[in-house]
């Protein structure tokens, strides 16, 4: 579990200028795994941009989530090298097992499944990242085993 960080402390990290918006959203995303409506309002007040602009930014970039993420984050790389080596099949199987689509979180907030366009680790294709651990040469059996292990913890 992540350590609790006070949102005011995050906001104080950057000057109250519009160009600090992305930095702040990134730090909040990193600390809380998502950007809540309350956090969004606080950030907007600080940097002096309208809420609409902050939502435009938060929905434009892939790394922001407006919904809480699961306890474990599974990211499967869909770069070209990974695609050629069957990463698409891995995503489909995970979607089936977890009962969610890529980009979603399970109802029990246990797992989030995401795809990423390229991790720049093409030599390990197909590669995935579970929490922050790289899984080189991912196969569905390997990943399923890992998920079972996480579930039993």
């Amino acid at each position, binding site marked *: 579990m992540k350590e609790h960080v006070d949102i005011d402390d995050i906001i104080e990290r950057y000057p109250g*200028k*519009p*160009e*600090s*918006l*992305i*930095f702040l*959203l*990134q730090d909040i995303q990193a600390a809380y795994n998502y950007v809540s409506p309350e956090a969004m309002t606080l950030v907007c007040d600080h*940097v002096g*941009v309208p809420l609409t*602009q902050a939502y*435009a*930014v938060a929905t*434009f*970039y*892939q*790394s*922001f989530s407006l919904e809480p993420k699961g306890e474990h984050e599974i990211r499967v790389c*869909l*770069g*070209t*090298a990974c*695609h*050629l080596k*069957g990463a698409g*099949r891995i995503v*489909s*199987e995970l979607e*089936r097992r977890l009962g969610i689509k890529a980009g979603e979180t399970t109802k029990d907030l246990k797992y989030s499944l995401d795809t*990423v*366009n*390229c*991790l*720049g*680790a*093409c*030599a*390990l*294709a197909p*590669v995935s990242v579970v929490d922050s651990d*790289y*899984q*080189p040469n991912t*196969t*569905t*059996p390997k990943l399923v085993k890992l998920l079972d292990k996480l579930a039993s913890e």
Partner: protein
Amino acid sequence: MAQPKLAEQPNSMKIKSIEELNAFRQEILSLQDPARPTVIVCHGTGCLANGSPKVSEALRKTIAKAGFQAKVMPGIKTTGCHGFCSRGPLVIVKPYGLFYQRVKAGDAEEIVNTTLLKGEPVERLLYKDPKTKEPIALEKEIPFYKFQQRVVLRNIGKVDPMDIRDTIAAGGYQALARAMTSLTPDEVISQVEKSGLRGRGGAGFPTGRKWRSAVAAIKKKGGPVYVVCNGDEGDPGAFMDRTIMEGDPHAVLEGMIIGAYALGCHQGYIYVRAEYPIAIKHLIIAMDQARSLGLLGQNILGTGFDFDIQINRGAGAFVCGESTALFTSLEGRAGEPRPKYVRSVEEGLWGKPTVLNNVESWANVPVIIEKGADWYAGIGVPTSTGTKVFSLVGKVNNVGLVEVPMGIPLVKIIEEIGGGVPGGKPFKAVQTGGPSGGCIPYTLKDVAVDFDSLTKAGSMMGSGGMIVMDRRDCVVDVACYFLKFLEEESCGKCLPCRLGVTRMREMLDTFSKGQGSKQDLEDLMSLAQAIQDGSLCALGGSAPNPVLTTVKYFREEYLAHIEQQRCPAGVCKDLITYQIDPEKCTGCMLCARNCPQKCIQGEKKKPHRIETEKCIRCGICLDNCKFEAVQVS
């Protein structure tokens, strides 16, 4: 024995002249003994994921335990990516140049006992030539390295990116000192112009000319001016920028400081993908160390020149690699591109003159200043000088990062450096330039790899991803893959890209289902043309390239899908069936147990059978089978 890190030094000194830099370098070098064995462990992303931290830790412990301080004093160093990622974790023992591959923590003892104590190689860890099966002991003799020419990657794999002293010992910041003490800003630009360096981000615009027009713009409009480094390497299948930022961050900084000096700029930005946390970390450490030595920040090298750099993390948008979108993102907004009526050198970041260059371009600048424009222009071919770093991935034996002189034949990269396609068959096509590039078929294997020749072949250099495909890869599927990627990454601001790319992807989807007609193929081509002509930025403008080149070179394969409902490569889900070869099936039950449809029948130790009508072609049986008994037809 690790050298003390800068932070541990009391009163960290500021270097105030080229003489002081040289004296500092001599001091570092005098503490080193070139004959002393050094164990280098690769800490590039590939090796890290394969467990290299455990290896370096085990080596460190074993060396300390052996306690041979007095006798040989082996040092251990962790460096950036050595490039040969598919063989990691990699360990190199200097001064011998011994190359060990797939090293595990358990091998530490043998490396220490055999190599460090007796000076002999550990046979079983050596690289074996896949053809002759002969072991090759030395790094420089392995074909993967032998045919490369490392200019940009010169320090990567040699220096510890987290210790500036190592970089300075290797000659880092010499070019900066030379530029600032013996060249005028104008002479620096002339050197870059004369070198013939073209932007490594993809478009290949001459870097010197860009700088020159920025100077003209500043004269006309006044300052300030900004220099920006584009480290938003979003191309799937490319990781050269990541490796440079991780393995030699000082080369990027030095290039930017030289550029700033030439342009009279005081503020720089590095825009790095958030997916590259190690690159960000190493850049931050490098900047702190450079600042503490007076190589960055105020009064650089005592010359009175001020320049500092800020790092911005990307937030996951491919289009932000496009110059105007990148500036918009730096300004804190959604990274939508804007029309380029006026070029960025005149109106870039905050509407001010801005020079944006890619990571690899900046890393080239110090070498050009240090070794001279003529030396640099002598590498490669006249219209594309210097070297280019490629990430060689896909269906190729030696996956990794390679640096070669421009103009080298494609086949030499794939066959000699890359070791060819697994199984020894010729490659089917090479996809270059990412989603903006195209596929080069085997028939054009001798094409020279430089900016102009690749463009002539219908593809492009792009950032340098090279994805090798074999006969099991379907071009319709690959084209569809790139369009799907671009469809998701399109910012949606202009209609040709927003609707056109989606429509192209839909058409390819129908082809991969065995539907569509020859007329559809013609319509697809004319739509592609319209998108190329009408899009706002390069993302849309180049989006049709994967389609155009694959149709041009592999029309037969498209027709097989449309007219015969057949996918020759056996990839497109709707056109294939899975079968089990009874000869190869051992009846291990693994496929049956994992099949989500429960459509695999058979008893233990007897050949299994797939009920085709229930099969959803998920491919799990294929992934699970250890005997290659599951076949696609």
